[in-house]
């Protein structure tokens, strides 16, 4: 069994406040792994450590069998941040061009990938507009396109569907499944339970701890709940 991402005993504190404690997780190659939890539970912090953006933590993270952070692995990960980090003065296409050139794509490949990514998130007609004129949902979609720009083996998406209309959300999830079929590994955070259903396996995160993990079906059976919301309440319910 090959694991793409393995985290062992990962802990992190901001000052005295512990935001992650003893996180263990393993993401298999070619699956969609969901991190589910309310905002403030530590999902984003965990994701940043997995991607290699944050190296100030205790424990061990291996991605593609390389200890993170690693420069080589960075170029194999596509990351979409929770808040859109775009250059508002530039057009959508210029933003894509810029990030594509950071991955040293050849010009031909770059054009191809830009066309593909823009089409995927349905931004093709808006590419020549400045990002400052984009709506919130359009910015989200552009961020996703940027994460896909270099055809990475691993995609780490932090709340990818916030502010995106249901129809487009569905098509993005279909595309994520498509990427999975191509053998890519995806890590997705969300606080929407019905999105969690679409993950192959998921971990429920609360107050910096993984309270339970498994496939959606396993979890529902284990906790005798009819939906994942029920699982979350039962698994993480504060003991009185």
């Amino acid at each position, binding site marked *: 069994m090959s694991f793409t991402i393995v985290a062992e005993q990962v802990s992190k504190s901001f000052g005295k406040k512990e935001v992650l404690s003893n996180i263990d997780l393993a993401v298999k190659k070619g699956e969609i792994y969901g991190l589910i939890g309310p905002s403030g539970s530590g999902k984003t912090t965990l994701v940043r450590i997995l*991607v*290699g*953006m944050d*190296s*100030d933590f205790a424990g061990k993270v291996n991605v593609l069998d390389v200890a993170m*952070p*690693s*420069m*080589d692995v*960075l*170029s194999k*990960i596509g*990351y979409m*941040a929770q*808040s*859109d*980090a*775009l*250059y*508002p*003065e*530039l057009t959508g296409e*210029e933003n894509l061009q*810029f*990030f594509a*050139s*950071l*991955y*040293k794509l050849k010009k031909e490949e770059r054009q191809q990938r830009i066309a593909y990514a823009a089409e995927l998130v349905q931004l093709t007609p808006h590419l020549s507009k*400045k990002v400052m004129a984009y709506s919130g949902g359009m910015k989200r979609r552009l961020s996703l396109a940027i994460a896909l720009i270099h055809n990475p083996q691993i995609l780490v998406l932090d709340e990818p569907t916030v502010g995106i209309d249901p129809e487009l959300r569905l098509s993005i999830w279909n595309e994520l499944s498509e990427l999975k079929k191509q053998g890519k590994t995806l890590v997705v955070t969300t606080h929407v339970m019905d999105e969690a259903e679409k993950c192959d396996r998921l971990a429920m995160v609360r107050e910096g701890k993984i309270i339970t993990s498994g496939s959606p079906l396993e979890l529902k059976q284990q906790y005798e709940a009819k939906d994942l919301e029920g699982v979350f309440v039962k698994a993480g319910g504060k003991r009185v």
Partner: protein
Amino acid sequence: MRTIAVVKRIFQQMLRDKRTLGLMFVAPLFILTLFHFLFTDNTTENPKLGVAHVDAAIVKQLKKKEIDVIEYERAGDVKKTIVDDQLDGFMQMKGDDIRLTFENSDPSKAKALQIKIQQTIAAEAAEKQAAMMKKVLHGIQQQLHAPVKMEQMQPPTVHTSYVYGDKDTSFFDTLSPILVGYFVFFFVFLIAGIALLRERTTGTLDRLMATPIRRSEIVFGYLLGYGTFAVIQTLIVVFFAVKVLDITLEGSLWHVILINLLLALVALSLGILLSAFANSEFQMMQFIPIVIIPQIFFAGILPVEEMASWLQAVAKVMPMYYGGDALKSVMYKGMGLGDIRTDLLALFGFAIIFVTLNVFALKKYRKL
């Protein structure tokens, strides 16, 4: 090259932002022009002096010294007269006693007037003395019935020459080289600092850390990108100062450009370094009174050699101290590269230190 990608992006951003471009390229010219007219097109008005009971001879001499003399019958309340009639001073004589009252809202003007009056009185006294001597001599001659030879004293002629500049040198001539450098320093600092700061606050810098870009590639991208605009700004400012405002340029124009480019490099690296310690544009502005304004005091407008020794030590850590000295040496004193070598090396040293610190400051984001 990822550095080139950063440079290209900075170009795109800058060219879209017309107002910032304007600030960088037009604002220095505007201020420099304003300074130029403030310091060179002065209409010097003659000081106005009220007099009462003053010798006609002295009044005549005062008028010769470009003083507007207004004669009063009686002195009365002198202070009131000065204020009411907008005089710069008032002079009364009682026998041999002279009483002077100055308006003194501008002490340098009052001092200048006082000196003129004292010179007049001294000259007048000397003339009286000479007249007395003549009279005495005349008496002696008559008693001796023979001419007494006495050499006529000729006042010595004073020839003036200058090591730097000439008799028409104005304060602006010594000030302008420093100003040229200071504006380059100030505007480059501000724009580069705020640009990187915005990259921090909008999260794009953080986002870049999820790509395989190196910290040094970001720093050099910024140096090259904004450096190019700094070069253009420097060229515009220097050419404008020399060709349009006709600022004294004794040395080589290329040396001036070289010094300013080094200054811009220091400002650029300092700006992006300090942006690491600011959380907002507003906090970036707070560095201006702390970091930028003090530079002007040590840039050579006030003579550093006459400062207290601890202040001189402070001057040595100010980039503008070296920049100002080098610019003044080349533009005003006409010195060559050899004479300003130390200044150039110091500026270069600052730049290297700041660039290195920048690469380390980004470690806050990623250790690689």
